[in-house]
């Protein structure tokens, strides 16, 4: 009897169930380790730069590899402005798309339309950049910039010469790239609005649009806000397409017609060439900043849209 107990104890301790749970558990720990390594590596390797420049790194506007002075402000500026510009363009479109697909489109069109819009998210960033260089940038230079400078030229935003590769082009291309995610999550937010919310308004004699404005949008607003934030997160981390069209000039300018530079672009362009330890470390600190900001944005967005968000493999970070 004693013997049986012991062998049972061993059998249950090392049972298939425990071994299996332990094994797959290790892989789950693996996911945490990846997250830790991601932070850890960037944090450690950027130490040199953090020690050399401290907080001045964020406010310094001189980026001079020759004399080894590194301030990231021009890139932070470029990233924030281009991403903000992208939102200004993409949000109204995304809302229009979300409203059309979830409320107005004929039933048969809804799924194919969503699919087409989401297909845009599957196109590799480098191909969108290629199209940006040869199609979008000339288009903006020839057809969008002239009327802007003619009619809105009194604003500093639209002054100066425009050669195609510019902050404006970068913002437009980012807008194109984030429309799929902002519109599809807004759509899901709108689709969670219960029928009785809409019927309430319709019963009062509201038109379709009034119903959307008075009861659908207010009800879905936190989800929509989450969608916008998530779009912002995508925009700041986006690299190739922006790098190819934004002009890559580390000068801070008030005009959207001027070239600019983003955090992701400077890494893409200079990381391979960076020779000195401090130079590499400074680029890594920019990477760390990007990672931190995108983590914070994702946490906020996920709190806002927690239930709505499905994991999508087709998207692009």
């Amino acid at each position, binding site marked *: 009897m004693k013997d049986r107990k012991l062998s049972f104890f061993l059998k249950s301790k090392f049972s298939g169930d425990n071994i299996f*749970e332990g094994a797959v558990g290790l892989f789950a*720990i*693996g996911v945490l380790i990846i997250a830790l*390594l991601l932070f850890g590596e960037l944090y450690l390797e950027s130490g040199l730069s953090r020690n050399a420049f401290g907080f001045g790194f964020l406010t310094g506007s001189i980026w001079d590899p020759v004399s080894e002075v590194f301030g990231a402000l021009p890139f932070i500026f470029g990233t924030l402005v281009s991403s903000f510009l992208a939102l200004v363009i993409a949000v109204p479109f995304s809302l229009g798309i979300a409203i059309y697909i979830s409320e107005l489109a004929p039933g048969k069109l809804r799924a194919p339309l969503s699919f087409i819009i989401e297909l845009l998210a599957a196109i590799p960033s480098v*191909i969108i950049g290629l199209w940006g260089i040869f199609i979008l940038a000339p288009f903006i230079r020839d057809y969008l910039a002239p009327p802007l400078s003619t009619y809105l030229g009194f604003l500093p935003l639209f002054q100066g010469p425009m050669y195609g590769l510019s902050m404006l082009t970068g913002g437009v291309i980012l807008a194109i790239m984030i429309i799929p995610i902002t519109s599809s999550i807004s759509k899901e937010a709108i689709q969670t609005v219960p029928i009785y919310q809409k019927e309430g308004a319709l019963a009062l004699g509201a038109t*379709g649009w009034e119903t959307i404005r008075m009861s659908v949008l207010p009800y879905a607003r936190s989800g929509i806000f989450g969608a916008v934030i998530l779009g912002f997160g995508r925009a*700041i*981390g986006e690299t190739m397409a922006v790098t190819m069209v934004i002009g890559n000039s580390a000068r801070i300018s008030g005009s959207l017609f001027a070239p600019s530079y983003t955090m992701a672009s400077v890494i893409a362009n200079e*990381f391979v060439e960076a020779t000195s330890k401090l130079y590499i470390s400074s680029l890594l600190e920019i990477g760390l900043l990007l990672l931190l900001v995108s983590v914070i944005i994702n946490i906020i967005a996920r709190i806002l849209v927690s239930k709505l968000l499905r*994991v999508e493999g087709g998207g692009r970070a």
Partner: protein
Amino acid sequence: MKWNKRKLTDRIMSGMSAACVIIAIIPLVSILYTVTINGISAINLDFLTQLPRPVGEPGGGLGNAIQGTFIVVGIACFIGLPIGILSGVYLSEYGNNRFGRFVSFVADILTGTPSIVAGMFAYTFVVLYFKSFSAFAGGVALSVLMIPIVTRTTEESLKLVPGSIKEASLALGIPKWKTTLYIVINTGKSGIITGALLAIARISGETAPLLFTSFGNMFWANGLDKPISTMPVQIYTYAITPFPDWHTKAWAGALVLIVLILVLNIGVRFVTRRKYAM
């Protein structure tokens, strides 16, 4: 009068939302169109099978970049699929506790990692360690992007497997681990496969994380520890040169890559349309 104005607003706003959809589709159509028009003329057997030639020399192709993309994506799958799928299995079947929910949350946040940051990580972690750009480093970078996607899609698809199926299996005297491995995974496999394929489609087009990991190479792959050419990086390299001949090559490369990715995406959606009624 007032009513008419409201009706008019209704019409206008409806029209504007429809216009948003149309305008948003224009870039997609334009991209597909220009890539096809500019790329198709350069595509032939040589382009798909030959090495690149120096600028000015006619002919040559992207054979090595196509080969390299398969190798780097293959490495990423080799690392990423087991970790992603098995951690997803853990989260769905054993993860209903604090640790599980935390891992799931972290994976969720990781899906938003900027891809270039994954490249920097692989650089400090692999390139600096081996003191060389390498196919392996590229694979590591891509696997970092792939793992959280696969983890979460696996978790979600296994959670959709009804409890009654698990109970049926347990009640036959099948141990829980075999139930998970053979019944639950089998039942949820179409979701797992979909997630994996979409993750592969996504990483196949990634450029930024490869710039300073797998780097580039003008020759055929000669070892996982050596720099390797990939389609996205090669397209980028060609695109930013001033040579029209290379621009054509960039378009043609883009066409090949886009076909590959769209086939994966559209194919997956057709496959998953046939769902088992459970």
